[in-house]
């Protein structure tokens, strides 16, 4: 045995012993050992049988996976000064926005409810969607448009000097700052599992036969993955798409959230209690959001109640603050006027979830996957803190909305320069459309089934880069029509209805089929 191997093994043992599971293994071994062993050999054998136990093997595997992925997480916070500044200024705007609402409405940021209100609210809780009305006096804190306009205004103070004689194609788009992007060739490597020669859920086979042997194979592999209980296996499986009935087991496994124990359920019940006793100024904004977005949508209106309940709970869950540990954004510090006339500075809302208009679209699609509200809740918070939160952050992180926007423009220029030039010359900015799709991860634009198929891949590849890829793929798909438009309204008409779009084949096409149309 080489020394390298030994040190690796030592490392693994160390990881396991430090983890929560390590304690339980130690306990198991301890409890199962008789007081006296006849020989050292017997002790060793006993240990061996214990460790070969399948369940323990799985846990060890998952533990190692968790340990490894900790290092892969983008550790360093943003280091580019002017982006840090931009993020800070943006947050100041949001605080202002919240304070304006508070003073206009003359309400505190948060306040305990009176007994009468509590009883009243409790009665309404089960059918919150029907009972609560939209109040248009409460404007959203910010909309996609606000963020979009803000991103377009960001400039690199050092950039001017580099324009002359340097590559200037980036300046054609709306994101004016230089950001490293990944080109199609590199994306092909990163997303090799999406290539056309692999079988995928969400891609109809050419022969329209009812029983598809390839799909059956995929389904078999999927159910094997869901019973394996191994995180990496589940992640890999998600890359190929998941059938509707297996999502409820594969997604939690791939996201490494525990939906089996009662812990999550109890936490959710406590949050519900919090909603029922303490009102937040933002509550009405969440209600408005659900009313005018997901509850107003063909695909999701039936889920108005669960969506609203989950959203109100999410506003109060301090655990969601974890999203700020790996991002250069920070929770908003707002001034809460106390009843006794004093003031206190609080992180607001308590969970740090600052709702961009349309935030409810991140919840409703999950109602197709789980029927229990707390499962919807746990999955939503996991996905939001890890991924969707990044859709509101200004940083160089590849998953941030700034970088995704830049990626969209660069990808479109790389593959369809003529289309890009044509649209720009007509005064149509492609990013304007893509931005809307990306900021809600396509929910509300694609059909529910397609949204879930896309989210499968986001979970599987752990990357939001699929959003700009999907957006460019739609532009590619509609390119012959887009080449003929002259005005923004015409482009709007071409891109308005994405109802029958099957997104996965388009993504495959975009990444792996060279452009023949415009050469």
């Amino acid at each position, binding site marked *: 045995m080489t020394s390298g191997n030994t040190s690796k093994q030592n490392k693994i043992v160390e990881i396991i012993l430090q983890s929560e599971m390590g304690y339980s293994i130690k306990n198991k071994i301890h409890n199962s050992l008789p007081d006296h062993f006849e020989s050292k050999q017997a002790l060793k054998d006993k240990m061996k049988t214990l460790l070969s136990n399948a369940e323990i093997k799985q846990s060890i595997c998952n533990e190692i996976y968790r340990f490894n992925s900790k290092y892969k997480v983008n550790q360093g916070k943003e280091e580019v000064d002017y982006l840090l500044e931009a993020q800070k200024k943006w947050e100041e705007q949001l605080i202002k926005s919240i304070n304006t609402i508070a003073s206009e409405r003359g309400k505190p940021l948060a306040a305990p409810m009176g007994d009468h209100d509590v009883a009243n609210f409790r009665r309404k809780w089960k059918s919150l969607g*029907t009972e609560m009305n939209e109040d248009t006096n409460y404007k959203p804190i910010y909309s996609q448009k606000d963020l979009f306009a803000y991103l377009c205004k960001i400039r690199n103070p050092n950039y001017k000097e580099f324009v002359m004689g340097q590559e200037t194609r980036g300046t054609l788009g709306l994101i004016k700052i230089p950001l490293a992007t990944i080109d199609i060739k590199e994306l092909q490597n990163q997303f090799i599992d999406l290539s056309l020669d692999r079988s995928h859920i969400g891609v109809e086979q050419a022969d329209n036969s009812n029983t598809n042997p390839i799909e059956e194979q995929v389904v078999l592999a999927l159910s094997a993955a869901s019973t394996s209980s191994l995180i990496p296996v589940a992640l890999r499986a998600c890359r190929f798409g998941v059938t509707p009935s297996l999502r409820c087991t594969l997604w939690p496994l791939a996201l490494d959230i525990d939906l089996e124990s009662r812990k999550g359920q109890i936490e959710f019940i406590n949050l519900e209690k919090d909603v029922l006793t303490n009102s937040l100024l933002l509550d009405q904004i969440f209600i408005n959001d659900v009313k005018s977005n997901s509850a*107003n949508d063909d*695909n999701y209106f039936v889920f108005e109640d669960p969506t609203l309940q989950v959203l109100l709970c999410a506003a109060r869950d301090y655990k969601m603050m974890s999203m700020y540990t790996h991002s250069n954004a920070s929770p908003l510090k707002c001034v809460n006027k106390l009843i006794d006339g004093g003031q206190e500075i609080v992180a607001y809302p308590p969970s740090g979830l600052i709702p961009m208009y349309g935030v409810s679209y991140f919840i409703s699609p999950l109602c197709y996957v789980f029927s229990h509200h707390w499962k919807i809740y746990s999955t939503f918070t996991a996905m939001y803190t890890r991924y969707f939160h990044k859709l509101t952050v200004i940083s160089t992180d590849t998953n941030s909305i700034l970088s995704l926007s830049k990626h969209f423009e660069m990808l479109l220029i790389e593959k369809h320069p003529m289309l890009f030039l044509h649209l720009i010359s007509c005064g149509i900015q492609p990013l304007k459309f893509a931005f809307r799709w990306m900021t809600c991860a396509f929910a509300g634009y694609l059909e529910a089934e397609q949204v879930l198929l896309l989210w499968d891949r986001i979970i599987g590849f752990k990357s939001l880069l699929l959003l700009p890829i999907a957006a460019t793929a739609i532009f590619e798909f509609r390119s012959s029509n887009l080449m003929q438009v002259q005005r923004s309204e015409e482009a709007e008409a071409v891109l308005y209805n994405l109802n029958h779009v099957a997104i996965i084949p388009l993504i495959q096409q975009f990444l792996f089929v060279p452009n023949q149309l415009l050469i």
Partner: protein
Amino acid sequence: MSIPNTAPTKPATLVRWATDVEKSVITANCEKRPGWVRGNIENDDWNFYWTSVFTTRSIFSLETGYRLADDQIISHFPNHYELTRKDHMVRNCKRYRKDLEREGNPLADKDEFGRYVYLDFLPQTYILPADYNIFVEEFRRNPSSTWIVKPAGKAQGIGIFLVNKISQIKKWSKDKAGSQQIPHTKDVYIISKYIPDPLLIGGKKFDLRMYVLVTSYTPLKAYVHTQGFCRFCTVKYTASLNELDNLFVHLTNVAIQKHGEEYNETHGGKWSIKNLRLFLEGTYGKRASDKCFDEIFWLIHHSLKAMQGVISTDRHCFELYGYDVIIDEALKPWLIEVNASPSLVTTTANDRMMKYDILNDMINIVIPPGEGVDTRVKRGPPKVLGGFEVLCDEEQRLLEAKQFERRDSRAGNKGKSVKRLSTWK
């Protein structure tokens, strides 16, 4: 009138179409077809006539003495009401089950409670006033049950009310003469057991609308469209008795729901079947979801089989039905009623697209693209199904069975053939 041969150069007139339902989903569908021109109803100069049930009835009535020509097809069967009037449908289905039972057909097997094992797809239903006494007897056995009363010949939720005390019926039957609510005293009502535990999604009750095309009853040729929708109540469902008067809770008809305060113009309370399936598969599993839809096809199939021999087969007729189905908590579907003239009023953009697609696919089946109308020609199975799926094609099944027998006898195989035939089951 003869059908001109298709000239290779310029599109000849293939079909003269006509309609007395001036809805854009139908007219736009006809206008865009190459070789289709608008015919004339007054002069009987038409090949394809999309009519209301009233027009069809008057065309087929004895007084007019009108006979359809070989190149004319019309959008209803003359006695469609056997399926589409609630009382007739119930009577026919009950008779069908009795007939099968008498034959000793295993389909009509009953369980220990006397319920049909395979054909229990209608909620317990009685016809009023004819079955009044039987109903009262049944009600006394289950005094706490809720029943729904509907006029047999009305659609869109008109005249429907809920009943949970026998006095409500008595009063109604006593008041019958002279009451303003019921202008025609001879009007027949049906009273059905109200499904107490409907499947709720997001806490709301819904029913299912499926579109079924029948081009022939004997042999049965029927197609189900994949695009249908769920209609949702706008108000949260409660089984409580105080809400019995609030029809918005219980009735899912869009025509009724439209008057509710909560009616939403964007989605109109309509949810696609595709999304329902996605939801059921996700939250109940694939097997349960597939079983539910299989049972829906099963009940459509047998409700149509029950009409064989009752609805006269006419080569000039085809009909598009709107099936209303309610699914209960155990994912068991129940047939509520069948509509002969499914509403072509479109409420939302998606709704219009869906109805346009369904009519387009329907026309492609009854008059294949590029062909004219000739009822003498025996056509094989449709080449273009579009969004339709074959529910049953007895002609094709017979053909395949014959071919199979031949193959079997050649191979010397006397065993039962196990090959799937051209029907869903």
